[in-house]
């Protein structure tokens, strides 16, 4: 029996797309909680949390910053960031650190994504907007 070309093509395309979905979903770096990061010790995971502002310690000469992140479950992790200092860390409300837990349960990160409550523009808006009208 001759199988129509369209059926073969359809199957191949479907399989390829399923493969693409599976590859993306299984290998995408997950957002983890502190507990998950500690359990897996996996590299390249995203740890998102609230920045504990009083915990920031800088060591500019070695290009390092350490601070604590409190995740959504309330667990706190020590994060050590190695890299150039983000200028807006202290304004940050939420920080996403990309990296992994080391053996001492310190989350070592080379990349920080910083969510600021306001961008440059809106900061200036606050200063200059006519008030009380």
């Amino acid at each position: 029996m001759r199988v129509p070309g369209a059926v073969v093509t359809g199957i191949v395309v479907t399989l390829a797309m399923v493969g693409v979905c599976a590859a993306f979903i299984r290998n995408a770096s997950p957002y983890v909680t502190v507990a998950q990061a500690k359990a897996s010790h996996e590299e390249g995971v995203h740890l998102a949390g609230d920045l504990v502002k009083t915990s920031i310690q800088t060591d500019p000469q070695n290009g390092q910053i350490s601070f604590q992140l409190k995740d959504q479950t309330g667990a706190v992790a020590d994060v050590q960031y190695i890299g150039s200092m983000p200028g807006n860390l202290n304004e940050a409300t939420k920080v996403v650190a990309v990296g992994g837990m080391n053996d001492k349960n310190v989350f070592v990160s080379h990349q920080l994504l910083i969510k600021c409550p306001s961008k440059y523009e809106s900061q200036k808006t606050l200063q200059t907007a006519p008030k009380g009208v």
Partner: protein
Amino acid sequence: MNSPDIISLSSAPQWGLTTGAAGRVFIIAGAVAFLISLIGAFLKRDRLSNWMFVIGSLTLFGAFACLASLFVGNQYEFKYIYEHGDVANELKYKIASVWSGQQGSFLLWAVTSAIFGLLTFSSAGIYRRWYVAIYAVFLGSLCGILAYETPFGFLDGVLHQGRIIVPTTGAGLAPSLQNYWVVIHPPTIFLGFGSLTVMFCYAVSAMLTGNLLDWARLVRPWALVSVAVLGLGICMGGMWAYETLGWGGFWAWDPVENTSFVPWLMVVGLLHALIVQTTKGRWLASTLLLGGLPFITFVYGTFLTRSGYLQNASLHSFAEMQRSALWILLALLVVSVFGFMGLWIARGVMGAKSDGAAPAYGREWFYKIGVYLITMLGAAVAIGMSIPFFMAIAKRDSKVVQEPLYHLVVSWFFLPIIFLVAIVPFVSWQSLGKNFWPRVRDVFCVTIGLTGVGFFLCKLPRIGMPLDPTAMVGLPFKGHMPLVPWMLLLMFLCIFALVGNIWRIAEMSKRAKVFSFGGFVAHIGVAVLMGGLIISRGFERSEQVVAQPGEPVSAFGYTLIPGHWQGLTEGDKNGKLPVEISNADGLRLTALPGLYWLPTMNESTGQPNSMRWPFIDHSFSHDLYLSLGDPIMTVYPGSKKFEKGQTDTNKMFKLTYNGFEMHGKPGQMGTRFEANVDLTFDGQVYHPKPGLTMTANGLQEELADAGPDFYVTMSTIEAGTGAANLQVYFRQPIYPMELFYKPLTSLVWIGAGILTLGGLMAAFYRRPKSKAPNADEEEMSAVGTQES
């Protein structure tokens, strides 16, 4: 209520209010005109329909002109102008501010779509009635979005005691956007987006009229224009990122970037299908589908990036879109997806007669594989950018697809595509054709030779950088492979495609017109561009270092010595930080990355926000790329509170705060508080006495010397406990720097140029002519002649 600031502000001039009102009226009038145009098409009143379409398009231009003149005329009583304009901006930035926000970029999309609508509708022939109707529906929906998401709304609170006041300036165009790219990139890429509407409307009207064949010839030149313009816009975006953002790369697989890349891939797929349809009269159903996909994927990407699902995944930041406007956008997406697909199944698939089998291993057979691969590549990228959205819908934990994973998945499709680009020029329509194998073999041998030479050159220390032999590339699911063979394979394939297409042009050059080579030229451009991207990323070296002025630091064989900042004032936008770069091979150069300070303070660090531009030393063989981080001037983020007697020991120094003394009387001008601090640094103990003096302007801080490296200041004191907030400043700022060595980035620029040239050559060759080209010419030019 009666703040003197507000009273002193001038009232809005009549022309400004009129222009704003005119802008709102234009949008509404546009919506009405497009609605009448649609109704006219239904009633078969073509003149009415066409005129209303033209009038609707002109009102969009009118709205755009209104918005631009409000920016140029500094009418900050309007919210959009206030949020994106700045009285101090140069004229070009005032105009660029028009599209720097959400509302303005929708208006720009509407305007560029209308431009293409006006250019195309009169030559739409038998499709004109439906073409205009569908185009009018789309532009009418954009008017609807703009009516809710209006750029002509007033700023809250400008109505003051019966008059409308004008703030003296706006919040301004973000300083990071202020360079010439913001003037040229968005209009270019939006022209590309606008051109997608042409293909969509042609495909839909072909299905509505039932003539599934002739639209291909009409749409083909516009598809070529679209590929060239959108491609150029995408390349410009990459260059903008590379030249000014300091990420050290061209492409980050950001959702916003993907939203332009996926439609581009779909248009490329459409173009190849159109070649088969116009030449052989086959593939009618597939071509229709491919005609709709560029527009649909763009609307999908726009919805995704504006909907807020990608907040965590994108480097671009988006304002929250007005809800009603977002609903209209979603409706536009749903209607275009379901409407189009339903129509396609009912009219396209059912309407097109079965193609029957094409000759096996003929050119059509290869085109088919190529088009499937291109479309699947586009779909794969679209899936990658949708992962956070899928996870959110499935209520699962969010995940992010990062750059290396994109590279892996994309390569499944890219490798066979670039292989086909290399060999298909030698295939004839009926079969592989005579002399196929000997020619491919010759090209293959030349390629092997060139790859070997190229790899050898890369290892020469003066030209390239050796690859790390232990480096690995991760594979999807599981496992790794060594980087060296991987790079060798990628380079081989790019050179294969390059040589194959040059070879083919040489074969044809005697018999064919120059402009008919557009397709090959574009393929050469793709091979060169991809080669440049692959080599510059794969062989890249980078290292982050920090140094103070005069202090040498080394990064992979280079020595960097930052100097002292050069500029007129702190806010001088031409300010530069000279950095001496040298290496053992005798390189000496002064890099001049841009650095200046904004008027806003970073309240946490107590230092002004800075703006930086990377420095790039372009040469043919490599770019040396120096990116500055935010200069560090303070030791403590914000300041640090010290209780009396408290000591802070860190890696640099030991600081002990022994309390403060008051000189003068409490609450009196001139009274000075003086802290007593011991700072131990390098075995020496210093006793800085930072002071705070009461002046008419509040408490004034003083810098106190603390040895050769530091100053200490005191910002606040607590009289009750004797505690104080102290800050330690570096005498010389610490400059974080990242040095990149990126070989052969020149190929990226050259390749982008060749690609655009090829696209425009093909578009010129395919321009609408009074007489349709005869069949011989068609056969001749469809990516090569036959060899028999």
